[in-house]
């Protein structure tokens, strides 16, 4: 029987195995070698590979991003980690103007093999500046790749592929996935970038989801199954390049589309996916597509407001019922209300 790991352990193992195989791989980020090791994802690495390959850094996100880019230009394969996407906003110029364009603007002379891990914070009052989910931004920029794993299996396989990729890859991890458990082979293996996955087969509608919202989609599908509705769920996994053929095939089959994303609704991931479906499969749509995403407001800190801010399974269910013209009814998600501002009892704050 196969070994099980938690998501954070899978990230750690992918980094560990990649560093063991290739001396060019090194990792850097605020707190990477500290006792908490980025929620366990970098624990033990410095003991194993030394402080040259597992580095802490000054609180200089912009400069240090330029530094890892420069090192990548001369043959290194850096993995940079930011504890929140919000902090990485300081380094946008280096990511977008330099890393994303280097290969193209110099006619392919060099490329920037770089993985930038960014965490999405949620819950326990992370609030307006520790919770942003800006994957749509990075996916808008040519030259970047954008990856959002959900399962421990994919976390390991996709991170390994990202580290081996010769381009800048924005690898986005959701804090609420860190403790989920799943089968993860000991061996070194790859999950290809650019491939979405049908994680639950269904016939009545298609739910395309990103990151943590895949779990909410699953919960919704369970509830819907109770009323005989069979939702097909697609885990996007890679936002750029986007695997729209899989999405189109599914929608052509079900005729109905819901996009569940961890980011803001307007100008977000849902818009792109709906647009591609409208462009390519308009005739197959039996009903208007719907986005389940964050309302267009900053993240409130109060737990009471976050319950209204973050959409969950019951919201997806409500959307589906309306889409299918079913009567409104009170839906219970079966998950303790505490999960409104924490993912589960294992999460006690403060971060």
């Amino acid at each position, binding site marked *: 029987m196969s070994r099980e790991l938690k998501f954070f352990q899978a990230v750690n193992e992918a980094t560990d195995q990649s560093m063991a195989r290739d001396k060019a791989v090194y990792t850097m980020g605020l707190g990477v070698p*500290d006792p908490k090791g980025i929620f366990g994802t970098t624990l033990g690495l410095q003991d194993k590979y030394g402080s040259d390959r597992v580095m802490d850094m000054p*609180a*200089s996100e912009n400069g240090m991003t330029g530094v890892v880019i420069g090192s990548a230009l001369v043959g290194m394969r850096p993995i940079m980690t930011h504890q929140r996407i919000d902090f990485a906003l300081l380094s946008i110029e280096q990511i977008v103007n330099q890393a994303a364009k280097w290969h193209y603007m110099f006619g392919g002379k060099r490329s920037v093999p770089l993985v930038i891990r960014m965490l999405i914070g949620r819950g326990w009052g992370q609030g307006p*500046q520790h919770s942003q989910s800006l994957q749509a931004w990075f996916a808008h920029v040519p030259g970047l790749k954008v990856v959002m794993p959900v399962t421990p299996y994919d976390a390991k396989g996709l991170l390994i592929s990202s580290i081996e990729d010769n381009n800048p890859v924005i690898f986005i991890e959701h804090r609420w996935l860190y403790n989920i458990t799943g089968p993860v082979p000991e061996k070194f293996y790859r999950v290809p970038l650019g491939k979405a996955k049908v994680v639950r087969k269904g016939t009545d509608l298609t739910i395309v989801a990103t990151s943590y919202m895949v779990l909410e989609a699953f919960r919704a599908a369970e509830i819907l199954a109770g009323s005989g509705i069979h939702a097909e769920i697609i885990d996007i996994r890679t936002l750029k390049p986007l695997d729209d053929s899989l999405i189109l095939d599914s929608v052509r089959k079900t005729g109905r589309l819901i996009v569940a994303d961890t980011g803001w609704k307007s100008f977000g991931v849902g818009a792109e996916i709906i647009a591609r479906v409208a462009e390519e499969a308009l005739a197959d749509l039996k009903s208007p597509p719907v986005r389940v995403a964050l*309302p267009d407001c900053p993240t409130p800190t*109060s737990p*009471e407001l976050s319950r*209204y801010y973050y959409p969950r399974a019951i919201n997806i269910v409500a959307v589906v019922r309306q889409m299918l013209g079913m009567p409104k009814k009170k839906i219970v998600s079966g998950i303790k209300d505490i999960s409104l501002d924490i993912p589960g009892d294992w999460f006690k704050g403060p971060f």
Partner: protein
Amino acid sequence: MTPKLLKELFYRMLRIRMIEEKIADLYPEQEMRCPVHLCIGQEAVAVGVCANLSRADYVFSGHRSHGHYLAKGGDFKAMLAELYGKKTGCSEGKGGSMHLVDLSAGFLGATPVVGSTIPIAVGAALGTMLRGERRVTAVFFGEAAVEEGVFHESINFAVLKKLPVIFICENNFFSVYSPLSVRQPERREIFKLARGYGAPGFQADGNDLFEVCGLAESAVRRAQQGGGPTFLEFKTYRWREHCGPNYDNDLGYRTEAEFQSWKKRCPVEKLKKHLVKEGIFNIRDTEGMSEKIQKEIEEAIAFARKSPFPEKSLLMENIYA
């Protein structure tokens, strides 16, 4: 400083200490559902600097702002309610511990992205100058903030325009669990960085109220007299874990011995001893103070607990002014 003032400043330090410790006690109840960065051990900097500011002066801070907010005269009830995520909080529960504000006290705001309120404080100083006001603006930040490029952009501009702003760096040697040795050059004194810009830069013991007051007073005077910005570095020490209510010396990123040596230099105890020695007050006075503060704290807790949560409609309010 007059005995009266000294008593008052001691009271402010004791009050911050007792409030922070109470928060630490209550935090495990899981009712304050937001990250908290306690300033226990660093009270003298907040009180010493703010003692030299008037209510009309402005203060900005970062993630570890409770002490600065309270020292500047921020409403304690509103702060605690904010930690509890209540509508009566200073930010209506939308900000939490990392986003405190009290306009009536001149505490314009604290936000937790390291270094990011520094240019905003400089801008406030520019604004007051353009408006012909005689206010001074002070901004508190940790020693990691000087690693952010924006600090340099800010001080360069402040010196260029001779702005009435004071940069207060609380150097507690750590950024979360990362020691200075992995972040800044050895033997490179932070206050000397400021001098490179042509800004007067000084360093002192942040656990000694008198040293803090001394430097703050001259910095405020310089700002008021059009002498431009001053950079003050205060060495101090964070007692509790970086974020949260506990002690974390067991993690091994710093030694118990180092912690104990700093604990011996407790800013509150140090001032207390001095005042008693000088006969400015006796232990009984301090007990009276504790009781008074205790009562205030109990009231604030009751207020925060019984306050309502923000209702759903507030979610989409105040996105735009």
